[in-house]
């Protein structure tokens, strides 16, 4: 059984302590919601989890293995949705999605799974439309179709509902239910209220206390 855990995470950005002493344990099928005011470190924590950032101290583990020991392996088992949608304006919607799918699968982008993922989010009809004609909400939906098109046990979603309408949020909630039912884990930072069944919550405001000794040394 997969377990994704962290202990004693200490995150510094630009010489400022963002959070300290943070830990969590996430088992297969579980969901973790990150809440907290702007600047409290929700995005930083997600980037730490993805391996894009390195913690100043503390350890992140997948099972027994530290993620910093095998960054490529960790990258291969997670989907990350950040602030940018990574949509190429000159590529069509399906080309955009299938590129990422084939990079994940190591070479084979499957047209059917791509279309399936697009349909799930209600943008199947935009399949051939170049990225530059998409609205902000449609771009976000294409980005979410990217994570649906290939399986990965860990989803890290940073404000995934930005620019989404109510209907798309519902499709995303359904997708998350399926993902969790299949043993997947999901970590979401959100300001809007998403309907998730029995999830853990981390309030980052509670980890913001400063550590005078380290601040001094920085």
């Amino acid at each position, binding site marked *: 059984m997969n377990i994704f855990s962290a202990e004693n995470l200490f995150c510094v950005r630009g010489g400022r302590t963002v959070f300290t002493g943070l830990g969590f344990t996430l088992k297969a099928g579980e969901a973790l919601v990150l809440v907290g005011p702007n600047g409290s470190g929700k995005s930083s924590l997600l980037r730490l989890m993805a*391996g894009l950032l390195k913690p100043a101290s503390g350890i992140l583990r997948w099972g027994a293995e530290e993620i910093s020991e095998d960054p490529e392996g960790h990258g291969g088992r997670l989907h990350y949705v950040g602030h*940018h*949608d*990574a949509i190429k304006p000159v590529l069509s919607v399906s080309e955009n999605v299938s590129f990422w799918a084939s*990079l*994940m699968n190591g070479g084979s982008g499957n047209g059917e799974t791509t279309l399936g993922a697009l349909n799930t989010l209600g943008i199947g009809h935009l399949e051939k439309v170049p990225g530059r004609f998409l609205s902000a909400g449609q771009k976000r939906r294409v980005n979410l179709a990217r994570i649906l098109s290939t399986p990965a046990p860990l989803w890290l979603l940073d404000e995934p509902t930005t620019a989404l309408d109510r209907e798309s949020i519902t499709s995303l909630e359904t997708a998350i239910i399926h993902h969790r039912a299949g043993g997947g884990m999901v970590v979401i930072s959100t300001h809007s209220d998403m309907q998730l069944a029995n999830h853990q919550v981390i309030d980052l405001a509670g980890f913001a206390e400063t550590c005078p000794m380290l601040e001094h040394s920085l």
Partner: protein
Amino acid sequence: MNGFMTVLKRDLHLAIRQGIDSMTVVMFFVLIVIIFPFGVGPEPNILARVASGVIWVAALLASTLSLERLFQIDYEDGSLELLSLSSVALEVIVLAKVTAHWLTTGLPLIITAPLLAVLLNMNKEGLLVLILALVVGTPSLSLVGAVGAALILGARRGGVLLALIILPLYLPVLIFGVSAVDAIINGFEAKAQLLILGAFFLAALPLCTWAAATSIKQAIE
């Protein structure tokens, strides 16, 4: 290997769809070389004397012009983050992007160079060696340039900064590229210079790939 091909295909695809970029580089290259005779005068002997130097310097500048966008666009739209999170090693992705860059800018330069060399009154032996030297030398330009392109990520006015970083690093390629052509025109062997260019490429291949990947990791933190 699959990851390499996937990224290479995507970058070539993007370059073809927005063909302007690669055309601009070639036009810039041609224009610099054509402007030169207006400056130094149309005397055929003088032109033949400076031809290899002019073509090489123009190639360096043209290559610098196109490098700014090598990682910048992927960085701005979030693709670079996702690329670095894929199971493919970032070094492989960098190598694929550099290869695509060379195919879309270095190769067109090599194809246009003979035409310009004739325009500058270079003889046949010189022309052949010039092409050989460009074939061996321009991949090094793309590789060294990739390090600069990765270092400027996140900087404003990155293009000028990029030129300042990489033009000095291009000097060895310029020196041996030009001297290979000069040697053959003056009746000497050009083999040594070409071998040194080759050695420079072989050294740049692992070093620059690694350095560019490392500085990209730094940039997306």
